[in-house]
């Protein structure tokens, strides 16, 4: 089983602000804040540790501001962590994520990782067409022949159920659900080993949400891509994630099998969260 590990995160921390020696002591669930009263820094995430295996979907849930996106952004190199370690295992190689040079980071981001942002403006280039967005990502990989790239883009849009007739339209013409599909197509373009999903279905109509969730499950079944799914929607967690992490004020307060987290939550906060969602 250990051969199937994709990601190992240990003690990841991210502090916004200058930080002080009291930051970690004075923040967290027991202090009901992530802001250090001593220096005013935000402890957005602290002491985050978990493992992710091939083909697995790990859920991260928690209320707004609990540090879910922060955890994911640090792993995708959108942010630089304050401390901690993350090892990415891929094709027999091992990458110490927080000690790579810029070129190595770019390589992983462009080829081995995929990200679907809650806000499509972060994941898509709104100045080029849907097809162009996918082509941009493919151009950074081995494909260089125009025809090959176009064919692969069509295949991906077809896969994510975006009408291929519309591939030359700009993303701003698309509905929210469609923009998410284009983001997913773009993220999948290079057959990534690891896919980050940050609130992929938030703000979409129920039927559109359902279709996107179906799509994600299909991708998981077909490709064995490991995924981290950030959401505050317990229904999404239940459907997608085998294991779940619960965060509050930057810390992991509980983690376990998803059905256990939802049916036998141990922590008072998780119990309240689950009860209020019923």
């Amino acid at each position, binding site marked *: 089983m250990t051969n199937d590990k994709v990601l190992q995160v240990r003690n990841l921390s991210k502090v916004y602000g200058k930080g002080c020696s009291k930051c970690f002591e004075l923040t967290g669930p027991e202090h009901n804040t992530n802001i250090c009263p001593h220096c005013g820094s935000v402890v957005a995430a602290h002491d985050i540790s978990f493992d992710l295996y091939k083909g697995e979907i790990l859920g991260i849930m928690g209320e707004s501001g609990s540090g879910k996106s922060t955890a994911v952004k640090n792993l995708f190199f959108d942010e630089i962590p304050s401390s901690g370690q993350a090892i990415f295992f891929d094709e027999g190689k091992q990458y110490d994520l927080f000690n790579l040079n810029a070129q190595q980071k770019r390589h992983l981001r462009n080829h081995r990782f995929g990200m679907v942002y809650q806000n499509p403006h972060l994941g898509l280039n709104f100045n080029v067409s849907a097809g162009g967005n996918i082509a941009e990502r493919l151009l950074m990989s081995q494909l260089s022949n125009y025809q090959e790239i176009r064919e692969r883009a069509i295949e991906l849009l077809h896969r994510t159920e975006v009408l291929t007739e519309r591939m030359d339209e700009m993303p701003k013409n698309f509905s929210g659900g469609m923009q998410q599909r284009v983001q997913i197509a773009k993220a999948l373009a290079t057959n990534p080993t690891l896919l980050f999903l940050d609130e992929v279905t938030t703000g979409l109509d129920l039927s559109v949400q359902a279709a996107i*969730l179906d799509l994600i499950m299909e991708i998981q079944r077909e490709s064995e891509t490991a995924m981290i799914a950030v959401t505050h929607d317990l229904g999404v967690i239940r*459907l997608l994630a085998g294991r779940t992490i619960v965060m509050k004020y930057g810390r992991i307060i509980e983690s376990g*099998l998803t059905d256990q987290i939802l049916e*036998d939550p*141990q*922590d008072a906060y998780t119990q309240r969260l689950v009860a209020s969602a019923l």
Partner: protein
Amino acid sequence: MNIQPILEVEDFSKTFILHEQGKSLPSSQSVFLKAFPGRLTALIGPTGAGKSTVLKGIYRTYLPTSGRIMFTTGQGQILDLALADEHKILELRQEEIGFVTQFLHTLPRQSTEDVVAMPLIKEGVPHDIALEKARDILGKLNLPERLWAVSPATFSGGEKQRVNLARGLLAQPRLLLLDEPTASLDAKTTDRVIELIQNLKETGTAMIAIFHDMDLVKKLADDVVKLEPPVGTEHFFNSNTNEVA
């Protein structure tokens, strides 16, 4: 009798700590039971005796408070399900341990026949063969054919139960847990379920089933374990200190 159990539950107890209500609720107490290949162990007892709690504890939907749940895997490895690594539990759920409950969580676009065939497809059975088997068992369980291609998301309780049974039985796990598998079924379908459970026993599956109908116990059980509601039921504590009041 000289067969080895594949599961031995030893002194299992579960107490829920409900922080919001400041309460601790003993739910199952000192449960001992075994499951054998090709045999069915019936769990009986009044409502609130903790029967479902035991099954959920074995499946690790509930974290046991104490006790050991020793399972012998297909590879001959013996492990305590109460302590096993989460990835190991997920692997066992996929390959060796099935659970038929009254609840069904599925994706809205997945058809009933796909839901039922999924465990076989994941095992590598070709799609068309898996679908054929799924339809066959759905037919045996009297689920109207017009529902096979539809998502079970909006099915009635009895229809969902048929889908759960079809999926659970078709997968032929080494250990199958059944929580009142016929609770919302008519007499005719119940007879079919009895037949299917008997067939599954013959293939060597070990089963633990909760029945409230003694007639079913008589027909299907090889061993019977009776549970009583835990004594000294609720304890209140000060939720700020978590100490027993």
